[in-house]
Every structure is written in C-alpha cells, then in structure tokens.
C-alpha cells in the first residue's frame, strides 16, 4: 500500500494518491508511514527534476499533493518525519524584487536533498537577512533576484552581512534571471548557480556532502 502511494505521488497521479492516503488512514495506518511514503515520493520527484524529466508543473503538483496528504493524515502532524539534515540554508528574494518561481524551486530542491531550509520569501531587506542569519545560523545563504536592480541589492545584502560580522564562515550563493559569474564577483558572493541543481550542488559541496 505504502509503495503504491509512493508511486502514485511520484508519477503525478493525484486522485489515486489522495484516495490511497485516505484508505490508509481509514485502515489505521500510522500517520508517520503515510508521510514517510510522501517524503520518499518527493525524493523521487526531485531526482526526476534533476534528470530533466520533470519540470515546473510536476514540482508544483507535488507540493499540492503533499499539502493535501498532510491535511488528510492529520493537521497536527503537519511535519514530515525528520530525516537527517546536512545543514541549514537561508534563502530569499532580495529587496525590491518580488519574483519567486525560481527561488521556490531552489527551496524545494534543497529540501528534498536533505537541507533544513528557511525561506524568507520575496522583497527581503538586507536587515532581515542579517537578523535571520543570527537566529537561524545557516551555513549557506541563497540570494535570489530576477531584475537587474537585484545586482546592486545583492551587493548591499552581502555588505550588510559583512558589516554585521557574520560573513566569516558563511557561504553565499546567488541566482535568478540575468545573474552570472560577473554579478557574483560584483556582489561579493561565493558562487552563483545557473539553476536549482547548481544551487543544490553548491550547498552540498560547502557543507561537505558528497
């Protein structure tokens, strides 16, 4: 049953997945077992995205299925079973920019690849990044931006982090829209990722995961 659920989610059969989850709840299955299957399916979806067989529609539908299944299982159990986390990544779209599609994919992919991700959303000020770094203590910070104005704001954000004395030991990656290695140098970031997989590889490299 649990294997069937994994496959239904991973293969984008939404109705079947929800029906199976309901049947499992009614049949007295452990909530953790159902959520564990959902987590397993998310890993497969992440792998398929990395391989280039899945794209935005699949990632978005996967997120929707996951939400609905956690609702079915029990709202108070809305957390997936903890898996071993490689490290923490703080991510957000920089101030003045409200684009989020690319950033959301990076968050999703980091999450399914075993990172503890704190996503600050869009239009995040340098100050908010600094505060979140203090509280969350990430190893990696990801700055996203779609507009050309983001180049300067990324630079300001990195500088604010430096000024706050938090730059040492912290890895900063940037990505989105027109961002490339030139912008990385300009902003004073450690690397840029041209897509979500590049972001995951960078984070893995930096925290020492193979």
């Amino acid at each position, binding site marked *: 049953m649990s294997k069937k659920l994994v496959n239904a989610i991973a293969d984008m059969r*939404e109705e079947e997945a929800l029906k199976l989850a309901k049947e499992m709840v009614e049949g007295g299955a452990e909530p953790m077992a159902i959520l564990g299957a959902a987590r397993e399916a998310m890993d497969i979806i992440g792998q398929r995205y990395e391989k280039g067989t899945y794209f935005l529609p699949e990632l978005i539908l996967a997120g929707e299925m996951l939400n609905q299944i956690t609702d079915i299982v029990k709202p108070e159990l809305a957390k997936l079973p903890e898996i071993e986390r490689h490290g923490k990544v703080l991510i957000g779209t920089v101030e003045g920019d409200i684009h989020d599609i690319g950033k959301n994919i990076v968050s999703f992919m980091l999450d399914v690849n075993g990172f503890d991700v704190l996503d600050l959303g869009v239009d995040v000020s340098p100050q908010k990044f600094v505060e979140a770094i203090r509280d969350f203590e990430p190893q990696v910070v990801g700055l996203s931006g779609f507009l*050309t104005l983001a180049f300067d704001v990324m630079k300001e954000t990195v500088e604010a982090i430096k000024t706050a004395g938090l730059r040492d030991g912290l890895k900063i990656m940037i990505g989105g*829209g*027109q961002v490339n290695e*030139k912008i990385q140098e300009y902003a004073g970031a450690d690397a840029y990722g041209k897509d979500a997989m590049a972001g995951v590889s960078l984070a893995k490299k930096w925290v020492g995961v193979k």
Partner: protein
Amino acid sequence: MEKQLSPDEKQETLFQRWLSPKDPQGNDLPFQSPEAEKLYKERITRIKDAIQLKKKPDRVPVAVIPSFYPAFYNGMTPQEMMYDYDKLHAAFRKFTLDFEADVHIGATAPGPGKFFEILDYKLYSWPGHGVSPEHSYQCNEGEYMTADEYDALIGDPSGFFSNVYLPRVFGALEPFQMLPFLPGILEIYGVAFNFIPYGIPPVQAAYKALFEAGGEALQWAGVLGALNAELAGLGFPQLWGGFTKAPFDMIGDTLRGTKGIMLDIYRQPDKLLDAMEAITPLMIKMGVGAAQMTGQPIIFLPLHKGADGFLSDEQFEKFYWPTLRKVMLGLIEEGCVPNPAAEGGYNSRLKVVKDLPKGKTLWMIDQSDMATAKKTLGENACLLGNVPSAMLHLGTPEEVKDYAKKLIDTAGKGGGFILSNGAFFDHAKAENVQAMVDTAKEYGAYK
C-alpha cells in the same frame, strides 16, 4: 470585388506605411532635414532586409531595448517616468538621440501611474505603490480566474473580461460584475431591463472612474505619439506596431498565475487546451488591429512560461507551441511580422519553433546559445539579441565590443541578425550601451 492581397503584399503595404510616417492628423510627417529622411528610410530598410532573409542589409542593424534604463540614464526615477510625462518624454528622447541605434521602442514601457491609481490596478505594484520609487513595476501574480471558470472564459471571452476579470484586477471597476449580458439585447420586449445596471450608483461611479482614466490615458498617449513623431522626424523609427501574447502566457500570466496554469496541465488539460484555442483568434486580432492602426508591421510577443526549465519539451509542444504558432501564422497572414522575445533560455525549443514560414518573423533571443540558434531557428527567422544585461551593467566597453563582434560573426553571418541586448534592462553603464551600438556600425558592414 476588391482583389485580395497576399500576405506578402500585405506585409509590403505595412512596411511602406512604416516608411512614410504620418502626423496625428494623418498628413505626411515632415522630416527635420533631407538627411533625417534618408536615415529614417535606410534604418527601416536595414531592419526589413534583416527580417526578410532575401538579401543582406548594408550592415547589421542595432537596437537598444530597455525597460527603465532611460530613467536611470537621465538621473530620474521610474516613479518620475510614470507620473511626469514631460520627464518621460525628455528621458526617452535623450536616450534615443544619444545612443543612435537604428530603432527605438518608444516610451510606452513605464505606463501612466496616475491612470493605474484612478482604476486601483491590482495586477501590478508600481513605484510608490508597493515598490520603491527607484524600482520598476512588478507583477502580482494570482488566480484572477479560478480553476472552475474555464467554461465561462471559453463560452464568452469578452464577457468574461468585462464582467469577471476587470472587476478583479481594477478595484474601481468592481461594480462591472453587475453589467448586463449584452447579447440579451434583442427586441423591444424587455430590452430596458438590460440597462438597469447603468442606473445603479456604484456602476455609474465605475464609469466615472473609467472616463477619468480614459482622459489620463489619452494625455499619456499624446505624449508618446508626439515623441515618436519627433524622433521619426529626426530619423529614428519606432520598432513595434503593437503587442500581443502567446495564449499560454495570456492565461498563465494574467488569468490563472504560474501555479494555476501548471496545475491545470495535470488537472484539466483539455479545458486549458480549449481555452487557448478560444483565445487564439482574439490574440491575432489584437496584434493585427494594432498594426493596422499604427501602420507598422512588427508585433511584439514577450514569451514567458515556455522557456527551458518551465515545461518539458513534450509539454511545450503540446501546450505552449501550437497556439503560439497559430497566433504567429495569423499575424503573418495579415502582413504582420511577429517579434517573439524568447526570454530566458530557449535552447531545447529552437528546433521546434523553427517551424514557421521563412523570412516572416523576428526573434529576440535572451540567453540561448546564439550559434545553435543561428543554425536552427536562424534558417527561417531573423534573430535579435543577445548581449547580456549583466555585461551591460558590470562589464567594460571592450568586453561588450568583443562579445558583439562574436555575435556579428556567428549570428550575423549572411544577414538575418539585429544586434541588441537580450532582455529588458534597467541598469547599465552608458559606455557599454554605446559600445554595443558602435560595434554594429563599425564592425557590422556586409561586404
């Protein structure tokens, strides 16, 4: 009966109209000098030759396609561009005259801020309204059409826009939900019932806002028209005769949002396909109508959600491409030159989108590999682009020149290429923009 013109003849008619600009009264526009007239005609001919792929232009044409860059170049803010039309005029005028590219895109992009305020526009945040005065406007994506409203859209697209969509994206037009069903106005019997909504105070207030907004739009458009006429008189043609969209983006950007349309691909693919088919003739009409009105053939289509990474190739070929292709063919049939902008990367799509009649389209290329683009899409279409925004902002004039030369060598080989930036930009170093323009002029001549 009047003889039907062929698509080629219709295109030629539009190019001829573009070559003979009119003032707002419909009289021939006087040029500032014989030299300006010569330059104006040479520039359009250069663009036309590049597009048609029949012969090489005298040299590679060059365009600069900014969003808010003219504001920053003139030390002004995007907010000033949207609220002070004199500044808008001055900024875009100076920008065009200083860089002297072959074509400009007019000053339409910033849009009239007061107009948006009057109508309480919700689809975008703009300087001073949700984003800071120094930043460009940005889209507030949402589900402005719900998942269960496809049938309503398909059954009556115009009615859906007036009674459902407009009330959702313009706060001031919320009472339009009460507007009557116009095809119900048929006979004397009961006909007056249909007009009751127009007597209701909130609907009347919405119309008052509409009149006020219309007045504002007219004032703004007058400034744009005057600017275009002035620049034409000085020898600088404006590139775009109008604008339309890919049906997939029309639904995905405007009505359903990214999340909505991506879910529809799985949850209700047939409805999505039917809706795109229903909208296709309207998107053609939008572009053709604009070209007829402006007398300019090139119709801009910014492409958004079909880029590499958004959809699989299979999804692109099923959901994105067929109706976009139909829109472009419909435009071509009426003599227009579709100018899609392949924003982001289009590498895996190039061989698919190549399937269009030769010499009829102009493709703005952002980050796709230009050598590959030339070998695939470039066999049938003129390419425009792809100097990167990051290079214009942070590079040196030497880097820009080297990059532009390489583009001219690869994409410019044999004609069919217009040198330009690849994506709309707000920020750049002036010397880099100048280096791009100069390279086309100094290095781009065809022997």
